[in-house]
């Protein structure tokens, strides 16, 4: 279980995260969605959980172990992996090289100085498998910066799964993706995470996607937890509806 314990973070006078305590992965492999209006502190929460930001107070617990003091790379090896809202790829590497970089890291081989980067059989097999699974085969040798937006998102997710996460935090994985591709991206994420028993925590603005895929929803507002529960709270919680959609009661 990934747990935020009374996390607080302020930027100047703004309380971006205000005493947030939530749990993710109560059941292994659950799909949790974080919703909330702009400025609710969704990305800040993900940043705190993954070590991109240090909390002013509070703790992050990973399977009951305090990881608040661990650096992002140490958290990755502990099973906590994230993607970014604006896709971050190694732009001058091909799709295969991008995925390989992640898998080499997962195998803790990046410290190896005198083997060949493409010479590890088991890594190459994993890489080929991921490229297949995420439908990237035809782009395998394309340089990342030349990829279409949807493909970039998929590569980003493929790299994340290449790190063999227990918890995967996705910051708007469908942002900027065409409606047609959206379903494909989120379907793939759902399918692979179910297969591998990965708990996903996804920030999402598209409420149709949330109600269709969520096992549980956590709603944030003004830095705090507004409420959480099954996806139908999106229908039943009028206050939440007003916050999210501007729908009047």
């Amino acid at each position, binding site marked *: 279980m990934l747990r935020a314990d009374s996390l607080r973070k302020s930027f100047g006078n703004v309380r971006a995260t205000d005493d947030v305590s939530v749990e993710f992965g109560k059941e292994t492999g659950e799909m949790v969605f974080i919703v909330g209006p702009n400025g609710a502190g969704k990305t800040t929460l993900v940043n705190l959980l*993954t070590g*991109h930001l240090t909390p002013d107070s509070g703790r992050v617990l990973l399977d009951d172990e305090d990881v608040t003091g661990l*650096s*992002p*790379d*140490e958290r*990755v*090896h502990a099973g906590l*992996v*994230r993607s*970014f809202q604006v896709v*971050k*790829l*190694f*732009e*001058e*590497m091909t799709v295969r*090289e991008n995925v*390989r*970089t*992640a898998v*080499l*890291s*997962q195998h803790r*081989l*990046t*410290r*190896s*100085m*005198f*083997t*060949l*980067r493409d*010479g*590890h059989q088991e890594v190459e097999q994993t890489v080929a498998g991921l490229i297949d699974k995420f439908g990237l085969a035809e782009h395998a040798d394309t340089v990342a910066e030349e990829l279409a937006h949807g493909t970039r998102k998929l590569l980003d997710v493929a*790299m994340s799964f290449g*790190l063999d996460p227990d918890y995967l935090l996705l910051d708007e994985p469908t942002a900027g993706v065409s409606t047609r591709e959206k379903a494909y991206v989120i379907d793939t994420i759902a399918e692979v995470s179910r297969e591998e028993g990965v708990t996903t925590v996804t920030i999402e603005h598209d409420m149709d996607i949330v109600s269709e895929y969520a096992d549980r929803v956590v709603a944030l507002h003004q830095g705090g937890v507004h409420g959480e529960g099954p996806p139908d709270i999106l229908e039943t919680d009028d206050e939440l509806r007003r916050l999210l959609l501007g729908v009047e009661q």
Partner: protein
Amino acid sequence: MSNRSLPGLVSRDGETRVRVTKGLELTKRQSMLALVGLLVVFAIPDIATVTPSLQLTVVHQGLLFGLAAVGLNLLLRHTRLVSFGHAAFFGTGAYTAAVLAAKFDVASFSLLLIAAMVVATLVAAIVGYLSLRHTGLYFSLLTLAFGQLLYALVQGQSFFGSSDGLPVRPGAARQPLIFGLALDSEAYAVILYYLTVIILVVSLVVMWRLVNSPFGNALDAIGQDRTRAQFIGIPVQRYVWIAFVISGVYGGVAGALYAMVQQHVRPGPVLYFLRSGDILFMAILGGFQTLLGPLVGGVLLVFLQDVGRDVTAYFDALTGVALLIIVFGLPRGLVGSLRAGGLLAAATRDFRENPAVVGEWISAAVTGIVEATRNWLRDVQSILGVR
């Protein structure tokens, strides 16, 4: 299994290749080029005896600064960090050898070299640890600052001979002993040169292995996106530090050899920040996107500076002019442009086989120009603040 990683001949894709080290397999043409290159390098002492315009020490110095530039290039090409203080490590190596020889009568070539490596490792570890807390411009400025600090320290201490420097003459010996042999100065120069060439080849092979390893891959990742690299589990800070130290050790080895070649070191030529600039320039001149480029750049720049001194009083301007030509005309550097030359040859062949390919080229060129103009306009607009 084990003999598969040994040098020798291997068969790959239906042709015989020369394996230098695991993964580095040269085609027939590449092997010929490498062989010719090596032969030329080996023949330099003989060539130097017949042509007065080519001096052995100049080539030797060029190779050594080139070696330092190969080290610097590990940071420049892979982690994308611009070190502006690499003379610090070159100078550290040079002064380690000089101090040990002049003050402690250490005469052994190998001992001087190893000591220089150790001290350069230490200095690079400290400078790197402090400089790498920042990236970009601040990193460059910090390396520059540490370089100048070292320069001032050596310049100001009589122990280091102040601005007069130190001789590299251990005790009664006129020069360091190579494997226990006291040689006359001509033989010493030639043998030291050949040792440099051997060390150079080994250093290049080691560097090739390093940059093609998973570690080198991680450095590339760090260079392309630091944040992402950390979030796929790469300990960015530690790896960049290790790369910095390795890069410094290359400088230290080069500096120690330089001290033994010159048999006298002064702070100006080995520690002053202009030397750092030279080393950086060598990498760019030769082509920092290549392994060999910095080495070629080193030889060429030292040669240019030497020849320039005889030709014109403004020889320093030569470096500037060369830099301008490279930046505007050959941004890939010399060795990088050779590859572009290969592309040109391929294009010529295409054209002979199918002249209609010109149509494709024109459309590609037009697209390129339109794209470039659009980018340029966008840049101008954003600079002027009109959108």
